């Protein structure tokens, strides 16, 4: 045990720590997915691809200090890429997902490069315009993009090795979770790496960072590209899980919900991204149940999740800037301190 701990503290310990984390998470997810029924497995899948997007977004906003309201549109890029490649070109799953990640990353490069000259509200406004404008392309080129109805794809079939009656939902959950684990590994490493430190340095003081030799523009663009890649992967996974890529799923509300999720979870925190993903998945069903038990009219029910998002955003910034993870950390800090281990 001591030997293992010593390994984890070494310089390459970050990699080992991330690996340990991922393995642990994989085991937990496997057990959970086995225990859940079809509906809940689907929820798990949804949560997993939301986590993929949120992990990238929280790194962008929390670590790199850049706000983006356009990640819903980047998800759309990933989703439509997968839908076109799997549906029209019959690509296999993994290459299609990789392509989605890559193409979204490319778009992210363009957006990110433009974004390096923008700050705060200007960046928000530009990405907002992007979020509202990009889905319009689907309307313009209805031939390729299927217009309002979007593009549908065949569900991914579980390999025969798992047995003929293996539930589709669990297979989808596994696919999405593998994506989530991969992103978890990558982002966790990133946070502790030199690149992660560069992100923070540029966020905190651009002038000082550039005086230390950091190319501010490149660092910021890199953050955008990585988060766009995550959004593309998340969108691709969404297309696989829902078997559909349609404009209705990628309206402005999505980008705003993503923002709410990372604010709620705690900016810059990967654990927070997990909380955020959970909220995104569970809140609509909870509010629906709430509405039904109180027999609330249709208008109220439909708008309740959004109203709650709005309140969360406002409340979080005013009263609770570090989100759920911050609150958890604050509680943890009040617990009796562990005995200091000698010489770390």
């Amino acid at each position, binding site marked *: 045990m001591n030997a293992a701990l010593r390994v984890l503290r070494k310089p390459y310990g970050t990699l080992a720590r991330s690996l340990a984390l991922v393995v642990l998470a994989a085991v937990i997810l496997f057990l959970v997915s086995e225990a859940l029924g079809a509906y809940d497995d689907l929820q798990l899948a949804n949560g997993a691809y939301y986590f993929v997007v949120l992990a990238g977004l929280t790194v962008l906003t929390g670590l790199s200090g850049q706000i983006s309201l356009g990640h819903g549109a980047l998800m759309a890029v990933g989703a439509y890429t997968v839908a076109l490649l799997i549906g029209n070109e019959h690509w296999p799953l993994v290459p299609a997902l990789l392509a989605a990640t890559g193409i979204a990353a490319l778009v992210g490069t363009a957006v990110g490069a433009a974004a390096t000259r923008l700050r705060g*509200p*200007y960046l928000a406004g530009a990405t*907002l315009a*992007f979020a509202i404008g*990009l889905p319009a392309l689907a309307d*313009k080129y209805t031939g390729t993009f299927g217009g309002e109805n979007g593009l549908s794809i065949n569900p991914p079939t579980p390999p025969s090795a798992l047995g003929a009656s293996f539930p589709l939902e669990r297979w989808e959950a596994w696919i999405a979770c593998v994506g989530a684990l991969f992103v978890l590994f990558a982002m966790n490493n990133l946070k502790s790496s030199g690149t992660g430190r560069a992100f923070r340095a540029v966020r905190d003081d651009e002038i000082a960072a550039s005086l230390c030799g950091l190319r501010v523009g490149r660092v910021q663009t890199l953050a955008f590209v990585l988060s766009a890649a995550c959004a593309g992967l998340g969108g691709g996974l969404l297309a696989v899980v829902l078997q559909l890529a349609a404009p209705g799923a990628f309206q402005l*509300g999505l980008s705003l919900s993503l923002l709410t999720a990372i604010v709620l979870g705690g900016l810059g925190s990967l654990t927070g991204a997990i909380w955020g993903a959970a909220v995104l998945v569970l809140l609509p069903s909870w509010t629906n149940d709430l509405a039904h038990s109180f027999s609330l009219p249709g208008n109220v029910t439909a708008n309740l999740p959004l109203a709650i998002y709005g309140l969360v955003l406002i409340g979080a910034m005013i009263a609770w800037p570090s989100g759920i993870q911050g609150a958890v950390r604050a509680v943890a800090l009040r617990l009796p301190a562990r005995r200091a281990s000698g010489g770390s």
Partner: protein
Amino acid sequence: MTRFIDLTLNGISTGAVYAAVALALVLIWRATRIVNFAQGGMLMITTFIASSVINTSGSYWLGFVVALASGLVLGAIVERLLIRKVEGGPPLNAVIVALGLLVLLQASAGMIWGNTPRSFPPAFSIRGYDVGGTRVLFSPNDTFIVLVVIGVAVGLAALFRGTAIGLKLRAAAFQPEVARLLGVRVGRMFTLGWALAALVGSLAGLLVAPAVFVGPNQFDPILIFGFTAAVLGGLDSPVGAVVGGIALGLVLSYVSGYEGASLVTLAALVVLLAVLMIRPGGLFSSTRERRV
């Protein structure tokens, strides 16, 4: 050729509305250094209120006045209760609060009035003028829109440049701490700035509602266009807001006419990015843009 003229005239009248939204954004930016992303939501609410008043009372102008008054009140309340808490802090916080307010307002409107867009009467006839036998795409209502917006812009410019209150508003915006030392009640100035901005925003909502219909999400594009126009003209410049609005209106009108309406928002994005890349301070900026 007539198509070009029609598109130009159309661009001017839609541009006037963008100018009004841009003015509201510029006002708040000048007063409190915040971009009010909730502006679209606020003017949507006041337009809904006007719609309800018009439906119950039958009088357009009563609804008009009530909308403006509720705009004043809404702006003051929002600043005093919400924005006050994030003024002067990191810009990200203010952006998120404004977005949260936008979402909340849209959801609330959906809950109260429903999500189905409803129609809204114009102030005057929307039948185009008859010019030498042809009907032009510019109506008495359009004339009203353009005149009102120009009037408001001139009024605001006079307020800011020529009055003591305007001086206080500017001092409070540029250097709040110093202004306090000089006796300016900075808090009140911030509230006033937001109230005025919301008033102008309500006006924009009333002017554009007949075209876009009234619904929780109907004004989203207007926010984008208003923001683009404000950036184009320079967030610090009311004159810029008007010029930017009209210019953008023209550009988008041509895009819509020659390329199709669905590309309009993307076109606005292109304009926005072009301005931010080439001349971040906008066309009329007198202050140097913040270059880090």
